[in-house]
């Protein structure tokens, strides 16, 4: 069972305004994502790309049974959109908005649990062959067994290309983005991957704070059933220390981004 989204997920979009947003939505639909509704106040009864539009998330959920919301909303309105989705008890909210004011996110977290928000500043989630909720080009990904969590889109593409080349493929991939107050934490996502039957190797990429590294190390204790491969970047001083700590915790750390695929294949065979 893939984490967060799969072929049975019923998706809702919010805040689609620009041509770029519509293009991204089209690409998701073409990939096979089941968008069952969209939120556009004042446009109830109309359609966008053949998808019915609703006034509120509650209404959309009642009429379509949607479970996942993809927020294209701009930062001026993101707080309302997030709260509306959270109050409607959707199982996953993918927040594509960048540079969300921090006070807004503190307000959101104080009023509701953050355990269902991917992002802010996320580029989305993709479960290859099943569902895509975000900006990444679907053709780079292939169904498989590597779960990838990245802090940047470019890293994700690199990891996807390499793991596809090694015939491993990907179970689910997500870009959490670099943001001081993320919803789902790094450890929470790693835990989801760990419990996912389809994921055999967990690949963690990008910059991490020292606190995140420590939380990962604490979480990793006693969990040896699935190998974890990490590639961390950042300032030289902190990265050296982080790489050392992660290695001591039993995480396979590479210092060379061109070896993500080969190392994932190697640890799988151990």
């Amino acid at each position, binding site marked *: 069972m893939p984490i967060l989204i799969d072929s049975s997920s019923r998706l809702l979009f919010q805040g689609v305004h620009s041509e770029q947003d519509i293009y991204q939505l089209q690409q998701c639909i073409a990939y096979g994502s089941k968008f069952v509704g969209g939120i556009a106040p004042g446009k109830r009864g109309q359609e966008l790309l053949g998808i019915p539009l609703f006034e509120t998330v509650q209404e959309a959920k009642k009429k379509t049974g949607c479970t996942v919301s993809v927020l294209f909303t701009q930062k001026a309105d993101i707080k309302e959109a997030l709260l509306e989705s959270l109050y409607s008890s959707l199982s996953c909210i993918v927040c594509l908005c960048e540079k969300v004011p*921090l006070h807004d996110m*503190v307000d959101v977290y*104080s009023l509701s649990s953050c355990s269902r928000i991917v992002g802010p500043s996320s580029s989305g989630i993709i479960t290859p062959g099943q569902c895509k909720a975000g900006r990444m080009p679907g053709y780079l990904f292939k169904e498989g067994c590597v779960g990838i969590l990245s802090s940047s889109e*470019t890293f994700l593409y690199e990891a996807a290309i390499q793991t596809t080349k090694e015939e491993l493929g990907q179970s689910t991939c997500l870009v959490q983005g670099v943001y001081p107050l993320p919803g789902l934490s790094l450890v929470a996502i790693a835990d989801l991957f760990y419990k996912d039957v389809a994921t055999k190797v967990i690949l963690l990429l990008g*910059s991490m704070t020292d606190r995140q590294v420590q939380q990962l190390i604490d979480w990793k204790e006693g969990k040896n059933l699935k190998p974890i491969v990490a*590639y961390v970047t950042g300032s030289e001083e902190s990265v050296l220390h982080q790489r050392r700590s992660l290695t001591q915790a039993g995480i396979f750390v590479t210092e060379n981004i061109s070896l993500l695929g080969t190392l994932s294949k190697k640890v799988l065979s151990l």
Partner: protein
Amino acid sequence: MYLNDYQTLLLLSRFKVPVVPYFLIDSLEKGGSLFKKHELTRGVVQEEGREDVVCETKEELEKRVCDACARNRQLLVRPVVDVDCEIYLAVLLDATLREHVVLTARGRVHERSQMASWELFKESIPVGKKLYTFQKNSLFRNLELPEAVRASYFLLLDRLLELYFSQEALLIEINPLLVTVDSKLCVPKAIIQIDDYALFRHSEMSYFSKKNEGHTKKQALSQQGLSYGSQGGDLGVLAVGDDFLFALFDLIKKKKGSIGSFISLPEREMEDLFWIGLQALLEDQMNALLISFFVGVQNRESFLKKLMAFLNTSHFRPIPLVLYTQAVSMSSVDAVLSSFHWPITVELTVDKAVSEAVQRAREMKYANFDR
């Protein structure tokens, strides 16, 4: 965005926080007239980025002012205050707990992260954005201040919270907050950090951010969303995202390359900013350029044509370009690539791209030596 000393005091005054009276001196003439008008004979000199200096004599004050003006630096001069005690007070966003908190301590604080829980007192700010009376009482009790200060301390907390929330600050730190011998509170200086992500909602803050804008190449590019830097080598690097840039650095160092100027583009608006970044790197006259730029299949041909037009019509000396596009294949655009006048190589793996770029930079360096 951090406000400078002067902006901080201006903002605090606007919210009726009691600040120590100060004079802004940015020229010798202004300094001279202020000294005459206020008959300054001693004071505290505050210069951005330097420790405050207490000047006990008029000559010392004048010397400091002349020295700063000669270096084109602004100074804030304030009178020396008779202090009973000092305390630490901060309002900030605790990212770990995801809440806003008030911190306070007795005396000045040198390293907040090293302080024990019995030295640094904390109260979380409730959802209503105001401290309850029992919370203010708790903070006050821990500080062991004279009772006469209680009312003004509570008022100060209210005003700081008003500033903090209305301007969407991430940090207001007063270190130290002075308690005078006549039981008054006053702020000599403070640090205020405003959330950059919220500036679009605060047009008045954009005045401050414009004032803080610099004029170096790095600052000019940063204002457009590009991160620019240089490590003095001869291989230029253009990549999408800081993280991927660091990853390329790791590889370049492994292959004994020498990193020169570099730019990272933001992941979202990268296509528009790509040309600005490329221009900036070409201006720095590297021996070779490594460009890592993902382009979707449908846009590949048009992007390469644009790149060709840009390079062919530019006045820059042609240098080897190594393009890494994270593509599966580039065969569909062979015809476009062959019409470049610049020596361009396209690689499909990051390892080969970096090796090629390092090699090209080295060859150009030796070719330049021979000339």
